[in-house]
């Protein structure tokens, strides 16, 4: 299987081939290596890369887009990883959603305060909503400057992780 990983602005081509058992031939930008990957707990892999041994904690974030966070001894690697065909399809389809930012709740909690109203202009990094969980208030920010298009919650609402809160365009 062929994949494309995007790390920041870099793109990396990866291919994976079964060698039987828990062994895989993995090539990254054309450099091949044999990897023995064994799952030892939920999402936790014992990886032998040659003879180098690693504990690798792989999180595939929920939601659209194949976003990964991979922990290796305290270092968190963030990248997207996508099947090459799928990536090509999405490219062909174009980015319909460009210029929109959906603010979602990163955790279950309670909406304590909406800091903006529909129609209001916001700048990038401005706090837009406060969600409380585990006795902590968390101010969520918009990454995008623009106008608040829609709000999906009211103050006092209990929301799940991933719940849509508001849309900035």
């Amino acid at each position, binding site marked *: *299987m062929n*994949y494309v*990983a995007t*790390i920041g602005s870099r793109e990396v081509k*990866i291919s*994976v081939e079964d*060698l*039987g*058992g*828990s*062994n*895989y031939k*993995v090539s*990254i930008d054309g450099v091949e290596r044999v*990897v*023995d*990957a*064994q*799952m*030892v*707990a*939920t*999402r*936790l*892999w014992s*990886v*032998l*890369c*040659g*003879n*180098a041994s690693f*504990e*690798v*904690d*792989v999180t*595939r974030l929920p939601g659209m887009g*194949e976003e*990964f*966070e*991979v*922990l*290796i*001894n*305290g*270092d*968190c*690697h963030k*990248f997207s*990883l996508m*099947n090459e065909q799928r990536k090509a399809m999405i490219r062909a389809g174009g980015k319909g959603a460009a210029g929109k930012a959906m603010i979602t709740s*990163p*955790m*279950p*909690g309670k909406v304590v305060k909406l800091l903006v109203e529909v129609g209001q202009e916001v700048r990038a990094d401005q706090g837009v909503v406060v969600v409380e*969980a*585990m*006795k*902590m208030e*968390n101010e969520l920010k918009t990454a995008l400057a623009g106008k608040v298009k829609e709000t999906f919650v009211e103050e006092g609402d209990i929301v799940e*992780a991933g719940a849509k809160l508001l849309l900035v365009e």
Partner: protein
Amino acid sequence: MFDKILIANRGEIAVRVLRACKEMGIRTVGVFSEVDRKALHTRYAEEAYCIGPAPARESYLDIDKVIAVARKSGAQAIHPGYGFLAENPLFADRCEKEGIKLIGPSAYAMRTMGSKTLARKTVQAAGVPVVPGTVEPISTEEEVIRAAKTIGFPVMLKATAGGGGKGLRLVREEPELRSALRMAKSEAKSAFSDDSVYVEKYIENPRHVEIQILGDRHGNHVHLGERECSIQRRHQKVIEESPSVIVTPEMREAMGKVAIEAARAVAYEGAGTCEFLVDTHRDFFFLEMNTRLQVEHPVTEMVTGIDIVKEQIRVAAGEKLSIRQEDVKQTGHAIECRVYAEDPERNFIPCPGRITSLRVPGGPGVRDDSGVYAGFEIPIYYDPIISKLVAWGKDRAEAIGRMKRALAVYVVTGVKTTVPFHIRVMKNRHFIEGNFDTDFIDNVFFREEEARQLANEEVALCTAAIQEHIEERRRAVSRNPGEATGPVSMWKYAARPGIPKIGQVGR
């Protein structure tokens, strides 16, 4: 000695107190909210009573319900842990009225030390050095502005009833004052039901050093040396250690003496902590006294060998302190990392959820004080603390080495934790050198981290690609079940015995 103790708390601290009771052969009564039926403290208590819905106000903070359980179960004493009812003088009053011993100081001591302003006045009278600031709580914006100007910026706004870093705001210049005051008040209100604040001079580059004390009702007081809690994130302690690298034996003796004076000033019984700010000249100023067991008490236990919770229980039962000052010896060095269910990659937002797997480090010199287990669902309603990991070594370098290797194998999946953050701190040069103040994490550490190159990127990419590859293969098999014997779970793949073919030698 008591036959039966009720533990009016949850999570790791309830488990900690349960352990002490069990070791002493005292029967235990737990209380739990509806979401905590399967919490560890509910499982470990010998009796357990549901005291209402998830919100703390309707369960763990409800004095009537806690008292009712104590009476029904016949518990003679209540251990409040930290947080919740631990420093509530109304609860102390009520316990006294009901003839139930609250394990902790008197309501009078709580009231005096619970009001930051009253505490300052009291200890100042006992000759304890304090940080310059307002003596009375102030409520109007105008008063706050006036006070701040008199003291001179930068100033700290502090909740009068505060603790645990809540209701605390640093104000460097006048324009920030109003908004900071509003937030401090709102936090104070929601955390302590009391929005009054006071103003203190902000000490630049301070270190946070505190003295653990113990007292009995027979007038005996000892101190167990210091803890340093300078590794803070937004004024919340995250890493603590004992001893402090900046405290000399003379300073320890002086601080210990002053802490005992402060305790004596309120006839303090049980375990308490005097917090001090230490400036760059190693002058120290009383900050506040916490009239309860501290989160970070284990570091003191590890260097002194004294079980602080057991001492609390003994003196509450009327016994004399089992230790004299000359018996207290600090041996080696201990460090505690607070492991929270928070995402260090997303500005430490809380991460409630189900722990899908958990492996806790062990081996020499490592102590894990945990309140969770694999399969437990961390509720959204309470503090996000999962565990306190403590490492002891014969010196600071060994303690750091142990902490590092313990953190490296601390596995929590299902929720994000602060373990990776702690690993990074343990590797930080300034931390290793002992060169930090209370703003180190926010001002220095994070900045250095941003510039850092991550190691083993290709391993991360390989593993993610293999996981994705297996997932796609699994989905393909599920769609075309005729091609295989049936859907294959990830676990099955993982557990399939395979003979590794690489790296074999000598065959």
